[in-house]
């Protein structure tokens, strides 16, 4: 097994200078009068963010802060793709029998999303709640992990890297918290590694309506009745509306990234303004009125800009995720792994809770009143609260990891 090495983030001054040179030469489009946000990222906001990124934001300061986190690196071999250097955070709890938890980000997120959860999880450990050993991976092609330059690196390979990382850290059984494509990856992990992945929590619930063909007719009949009689709760109705809206208005990037990522790459790689606008539109639209500071936005964007494999490499995941042996799937019952499903009002798709029951053994579900796609960043207390409830002594996933129930062996 490859050793685990402490990792220091070190973006070269040359790279920082190159970014600033490009930013200084930025050219902006004109905007329609009263365009609002309907047409995409508003000009005024992008201009302001670019100015901040160029003149105020100091990557070196941000890097220093990030280096205070427990950063590590290891090398994981993936059959057919060779050894990959994987960056991750690993916060070991003082409670030895803490629950090993793997946080899996998506696009345009990163390992950084977990950092907001940490203080709440640490509090939990201090206050007789469950404790967690937290691992937050940088997926291959993201942040400070290696890029994969061979085609065919599909979701199953991302799943493999995630699983192997936990094994390398000595966690043969573990639980996951997945967001965005991390939801698909962790779902696939539960299919591929059922004896390891004991419980899965996600805020992006890939549910489908109950199938008319399943052996138990009641979920489908119930769905049909409720649908025809329009018996959804107000929250569910709003969720369905928003899902429909998002499918119509918000999926252009997805269609493009899953079909022509190379074409998009040129735009994102050559133009920091272009990339910032691309990302900022999502950061705004996918969140629930979250007030991003310019500092936060530039930090998130810089993580991509200064990533090891290049700002464009995260797009490959989109192309591969719709093809090959294990494309991203909605629906499907996966047994064994316990499920915790969180419903946030501004998630991209937000479907009735009953549909989520078709995904597996749901031991925890919570409908939140605030929060969106980046829930762990926007409303970390809520997400941490979910994890604590789900894995705590009264929770449906309590004790799912043998020997690591999250509590000190001696009550204090």
């Amino acid at each position, binding site marked *: 097994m490859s050793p685990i090495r402490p990792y220091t983030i070190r973006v070269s001054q040359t790279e920082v200078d190159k970014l600033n040179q490009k930013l200084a030469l930025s050219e902006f489009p004109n905007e329609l009068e009263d365009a609002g946000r309907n047409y995409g990222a508003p000009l005024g906001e992008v201009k302001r963010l670019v100015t901040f990124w160029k003149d105020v934001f100091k990557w070196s300061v941000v890097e220093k802060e990030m280096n205070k986190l427990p950063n590590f690196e290891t090398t994981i071999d993936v059959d057919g793709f060779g050894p990959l250097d994987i960056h991750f955070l690993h916060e070991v709890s003082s409670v030895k029998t803490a629950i090993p938890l793997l946080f899996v980000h998506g696009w345009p997120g990163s390992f950084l999303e977990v950092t907001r959860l940490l203080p709440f999880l640490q509090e939990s450990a201090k206050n007789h709640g469950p404790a967690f050993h937290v691992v937050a991976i940088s997926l291959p092609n993201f942040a400070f992990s290696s890029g994969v330059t061979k085609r065919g690196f599909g979701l199953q390979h991302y799943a493999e890297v995630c699983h192997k990382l936990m094994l390398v850290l000595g966690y043969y059984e573990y639980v996951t918290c997945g967001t965005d494509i991390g939801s698909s990856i962790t779902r696939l992990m539960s299919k591929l590694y059922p004896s390891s992945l004991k419980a899965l929590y996600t805020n992006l619930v890939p549910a489908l309506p109950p199938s008319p063909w399943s052996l138990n007719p009641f979920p489908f009949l119930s769905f049909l009745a409720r649908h025809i009689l329009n018996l959804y709760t107000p929250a569910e109705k709003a969720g369905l509306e928003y899902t429909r809206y998002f499918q119509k208005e918000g999926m252009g990037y997805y269609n493009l*990234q899953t*079909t*022509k990522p*190379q074409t998009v790459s040129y735009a994102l790689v050559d133009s920091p303004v272009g990339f910032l*606008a691309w990302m900022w539109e999502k950061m705004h639209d996918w969140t629930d009125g979250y007030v991003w500071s310019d500092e936060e936005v530039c930090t998130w964007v810089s993580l991509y800009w200064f990533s090891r494999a290049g700002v464009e490499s995260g797009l490959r995941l989109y192309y591969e995720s719709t093809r090959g042996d294990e494309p991203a799937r909605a629906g499907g019952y996966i047994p064994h792994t316990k499920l915790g499903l969180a419903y946030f009002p501004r998630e991209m798709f937000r479907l009735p809770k009953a549909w989520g029951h078709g995904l597996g053994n749901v031991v925890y579900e919570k409908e939140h009143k605030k929060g969106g796609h980046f829930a762990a960043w926007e409303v970390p207390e809520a997400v941490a609260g979910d994890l604590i409830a789900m894995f705590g002594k009264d929770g449906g996933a309590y004790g799912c990891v043998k020997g690591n129930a999250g509590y000190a062996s001696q009550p204090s």
Partner: protein
Amino acid sequence: MAPTVKPYQITVPDSAIERLKTKLSPTTLPGETTFSNDWKWGAPLDDIKRLVNFWHKNYDWRQAEAELNKLPQFMTTVSVDGHEDALAIHFIHQKSEKPNSIPLLFCHGWAGSFIEVTKILPLLTSGGSDSEQTFHVVAPSLPNCGFSQRTTKPGFGISQYAEVCHKLMLQLGYKNYVTQGGDWGFPITRAMGFLYPSHVLASHLNFILSLPPSPLYTPLLVLQYLTGRYTPAEKAGLERTKWFTAEGSGYNQIQATKPHTPGFALADSPVALLAWIYEKLHDWTDQYPWTDEEILTWISIYYFSDAGADASVRLYYEITHPNGHETQVEGPMNDLMKWNKVPLGLSYFPKDVIVVLSSWGRTLGPVVFEKRHEEGGHFASYEKPDLLASDLRTMIANSGISCS
């Protein structure tokens, strides 16, 4: 004050050319992978490298500009109800010297420009033998494209583009005219047929969108559609359409929902623009042997356009979000596919991106000419000008239209 038509010559300022060169050096490109030259993933890295290098070091815009300036170009202004009072419109206008020539409005699309008319222009105005129909050709740069002005208010949609084209023809003294369109030329010329039916003598399309025959409106065609066997060409057309819908429509969806977002990259980075359009020049044509010169001229027209490289993509949003609608609506496009009484000529090219069944095309109106070609793609007037010119002549002959 009545608008005046003035002769026009393209003169891109030196500063713009300098700015382009500055932006091209250095251009940052994505890293190499095993798939970075696979067209399935998008514009290949090696091609883009070569084109960037050529654009930066050897491509001579002034030479291309001089060539374009040999065309009879003009500038006028058009007022658009509810929008600009005097929108500057750049256009090519060539009258034929032959008798009985018919006025023809040539409507370009995206990712093309007025340049799409350049090869077919002499064929339409001078024709072949004396007996062949000739045309007075008007080919505008659509608003937000080429050297026409940028529009500033939301809601400048298909009807407005149609209004501009129609008013341009009237200004030039052409009360009655024929229209020819591909890509955006489809909805724009169709809209002209609905809005100005007494002016449009005939409509020719090389990009044909239509819905399946409806039992309510076109029952006989339903029968044809259901019982007819598809020809191999129709089958291939359906396959091509399936491919485009599944693999080639991402740009369409993003431009139709969030046009300003990619707009930033298109405005800021010439290589972003290059890749965005070059991919279409390859994927949408029938193995057309583009020279690097041609590619860069097509793209430079976008780069040096008055409206900016990003402005043209807004049209995709405007047509799907009429009247400030928050979500896409199918109504406007569906309306344009309803039966229209203007005599219709349909030319199907196999490598176009949507190729419908003949029975579907016939729901659009009274078809006086229909041909399914064996070669050619989306930019038919540029790829196969001879074929398209011939189609237009035959259409006129079939329709019995003459210029009085």
